[in-house]
């Protein structure tokens, strides 16, 4: 540990207490006109509960949040190879376009005559999504990937009920699936039947057929799957599902590997959400907001949730109520994540059909290049065949030497990288899932590969303590998750012991 400083700062890295420890109730960073002091129309229901919200002047606010920001890793800082998350470059043109007054300063309930450009933008986005995926319809309103899954599964439920087959309650989910898939199926009122993993990381037609029956509503498959592999039997699985009277939900989280190369509609997909914040590069923002438009097959399209955009002559109108239609309902107030639509469309227009195809090819090329470079030094369980846009390693080459996947991840922090996804998918032991994306130049891949190979060398040299002590160079050392969970402290309260503040400043 480097010697402590008097200020608590370390060079460019500033120690920063909570706003509650520096601000006070009379501070403010805004100048508002004085109220006139008119009598209220509240009949005594004015606030009696204490507010006790700290205020900071603008310079203090700037410093507080800039200081906090400097404790974050970000894609603009370096490679962010977090598998399943598609951390690619976020073009700034998209940010500018989303802030055009004509988009950002529009209220969702303005008369439709005043928002024709916004509806046209949504229609154009829908056209791109439908054309790219080879699907006839899209519901734009889901607000994130899991919300899109929910939309797709509710459309399936509505279609089954319309057929008089609401008794179909079982949904097949491979054990390699994202946790959102079984959680969504359960949220939509289905039961989950897991398809066990096979040694080759793929879903097998025989295993699916063995599970089929008159009570099966759907299968939820991620393709390319979470092991970074394209499912070779996908078309035949889709046919078997359809023959059994069920629907095929495709988790589109990994669509980045095939955009412009393969249309999910050609694979027999009935519903698929598209994470605009992955494939179409709307920024992740430290955890959101996302957007999860869901493309639907002809069989499911009639059940798409409101709102629908309806073209009458040259005017676009909004159908906002499910009553009297087959729509299964409503996913949220208003029309979805307009701010994300604008960014995603800007991204699509910029790339075009040729650029999007290049996105998929470069994403897959970058991943296979990393696979080729890392394979001699790590265990790549499915490494004999090409991968798609992600490289999956397991811990079998490091664990016998006493180093775990988590230790490898923490050592990468000291090397200045955000680690890969750890311990997912669950179907291999100690998974390390690496997704470089297409926006990494070759020299960054080489630099990362060399760091990984050097770490493998340290594992082989038996430097276990080096890994267990990592990270040492980050703003914080390893944090105690057990302490956080055993006595949850989820907010500041007045009278809190300020020991924490003193520690933070130390």
């Amino acid at each position, binding site marked *: 540990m480097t010697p402590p400083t008097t200020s608590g700062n370390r060079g460019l890295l500033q120690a920063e207490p909570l706003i509650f420890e520096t601000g006070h109730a009379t501070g403010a960073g805004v100048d508002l006109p004085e109220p006139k002091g008119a009598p209220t129309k509240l009949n005594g229901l004015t606030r009696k509960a204490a*507010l006790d*919200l700290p205020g900071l002047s603008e310079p203090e606010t700037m410093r507080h949040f800039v200081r906090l920001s400097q404790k974050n890793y970000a894609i*603009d800082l370096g490679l962010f190879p977090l598998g399943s998350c598609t951390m690619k470059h976020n073009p700034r043109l998209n940010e500018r376009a989303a802030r055009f007054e004509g988009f950002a300063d529009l209220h969702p309930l303005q008369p439709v005559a005043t928002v024709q450009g916004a509806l046209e933008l949504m229609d154009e986005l829908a056209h791109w999504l439908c054309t790219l995926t080879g699907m006839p319809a899209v519901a734009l309103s889901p607000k994130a990937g899991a919300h899109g899954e929910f939309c797709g599964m509710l459309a399936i439920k509505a279609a089954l009920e319309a057929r008089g087959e609401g008794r179909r309650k079982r949904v097949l989910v491979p054990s390699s699936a994202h*946790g959102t898939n079984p*959680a969504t199926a359960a*949220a939509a009122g289905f039961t989950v039947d897991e398809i066990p993993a096979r040694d080759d990381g793929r879903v097998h037609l025989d295993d699916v057929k063995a599970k089929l029956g008159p009570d099966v509503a759907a299968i939820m498959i991620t393709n390319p799957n979470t092991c970074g592999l394209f499912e070779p039997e996908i078309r035949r699985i889709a046919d078997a599902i359809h023959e059994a009277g069920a629907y095929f939900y495709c988790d589109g989280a990994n669509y980045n590997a095939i955009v412009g190369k393969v249309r999910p509609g050609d694979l027999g997909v009935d519903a698929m959400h598209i994470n605009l914040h992955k494939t179409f590069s709307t920024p992740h923002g430290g955890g959101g*907001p996302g957007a999860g438009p869901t493309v639907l097959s002809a069989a499911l399209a009639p059940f798409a949730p409101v709102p629908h955009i309806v073209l009458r002559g040259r005017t676009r109108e909004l159908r906002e109520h499910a009553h009297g239609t087959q729509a299964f309902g409503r996913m949220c107030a208003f029309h979805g994540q307009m701010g994300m639509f604008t960014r995603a469309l800007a991204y699509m227009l910029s790339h075009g059909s040729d650029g999007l195809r290049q996105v998929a090819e470069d994403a897959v090329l970058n991943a296979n290049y990393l696979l080729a470079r890392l394979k001699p030094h790590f265990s790549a369980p499915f490494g004999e065949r090409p991968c798609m846009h992600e490289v999956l390693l397991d811990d079998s080459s490091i664990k016998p030497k006493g180093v775990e996947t988590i230790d490898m991840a923490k050592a990468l922090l000291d090397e200045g990288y955000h680690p890969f996804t750890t311990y997912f998918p669950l179907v291999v032991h100690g998974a390390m899932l690496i997704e470089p994306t297409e926006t990494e130049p*070759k020299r960054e891949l080489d630099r990362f590969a060399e760091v990984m190979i050097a770490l493998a060398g340290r594992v082989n040299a038996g430097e276990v303590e080096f890994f267990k002590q990592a990270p040492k160079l980050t703003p914080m050392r390893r944090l105690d998750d057990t302490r956080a969970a055993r006595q*949850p402290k989820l907010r500041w309260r007045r009278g809190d012991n300020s020991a924490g503040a003193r520690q933070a400043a130390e």
Partner: protein
Amino acid sequence: MRYLPLTDADREQMLAVIGVKTVDDLFVDVPNAALLKSLVDLPRAQGELEVHRRLQRLAEKNTPAGRTAFFLGAGAYRHHVPASVDHLIQRSEFLTAYTPYQPEIAQGTLQALYEFQSQVAQLLDVEIANASMYDGSTACAEAAMMAARVTKRKKIVFSGGVHPHYVDTARTACEAQGLEIVALPAAIDDEAAVAKELSADVAAVVVQSPNLFGTVTDLTQIGEAARGAGALMVATFTECVAFGLIEPAGAYGADIVCGEGQSIGNALNFGGPYVGLFGVREKYIRQMPGRVAGETIDADGKRGFVLTLSTREQHIRREKATSNICTNSGLCQLAWTIHMTLLGEKGLRQLATLNHEKAIELADALAKVKGVEVLTERFFNEIAVKLPKPAQEVVDTLAARGVIAGVAMSRLNPRAGMDDVLIACATEMNTDEDIAAYAKALQEALQ
């Protein structure tokens, strides 16, 4: 392509290292029939200038709120957001970070989450708040489902004052799980009617204050009645600025307080992205949906923050998770926290008071127009008015004259039988001239 760094020479070299001839050799697992042989039928790549121009033209086909006299709320509100907020959320380290799964290199996001949770808890007067939901409507739906888990009951009663989009969103989500939604008929000022529906099978009553029509309600008795019946009181809201002036639902003993946070820090954005606020009693924390940040220490004993209680969540609990939610509303939540930090208690109280005074001026001005009746008695910044004509007609007429008068109830709920009711809102953005222009245009439209 300006966003793709690989050169053709790089690609050649990389293919050689991999040991294949072409990139299509890497797509061997794709059935040949499904691999597209040509480009999809969409335009080719364009430069930044061309894309900028194209989107600018689409934007210009809209009438931005700020170019009108603007009085529309009903779930989304136009407020002034300080310039520093947008600057800060566009910092790369916030904008292009992921969910803080590696806390050692994500303390910025995590501390901001903790500050957000603390501010939300203070504002709503609740014990605990989560790290945000997608928006107010989905937060309300999650609250209804959570109440069913807590009470192990299946019926949820919505007051006639809850925003119809919120009811519809909750209905869609809840009915999928076999829960029953009872939505009471639209009522300007009768949140208390939900208490009459309480019975041994009711999981929760959902009320809204200020409600769709702007009415502010004392929720004490509803809360007591719910507790007496073993049900939860869920209180929702669409305008969080109100709680700088009015008593928040937490103070009335609501078990779950949830709603829309867009008013603070976030633009109208034609409906999204927004930020859902969600607060609960501490004893229900393990039934709470969504992420939450908590305090801990690092290996050197320094205070830090991590995502915690994650065993409730889908990535661990899969089909037994409390919700399928994964994403929160990260940047919108950050914008909320920054704006709230700039306001502080003093600024928020002032802002809320200004809103209330503007709404009183609006109500007074509209009440003077012949044939117009203000229906809402106790309000914050939103009112329902009764017109002598179908409200949608009046909204369209006034829009053509540069006045966005509000929203017709018939648009939000065509079956409410309130076609002559208009919902209008005033904020600190409205000038005296705006209000005068509105009254004048309305008077002329009704002549």
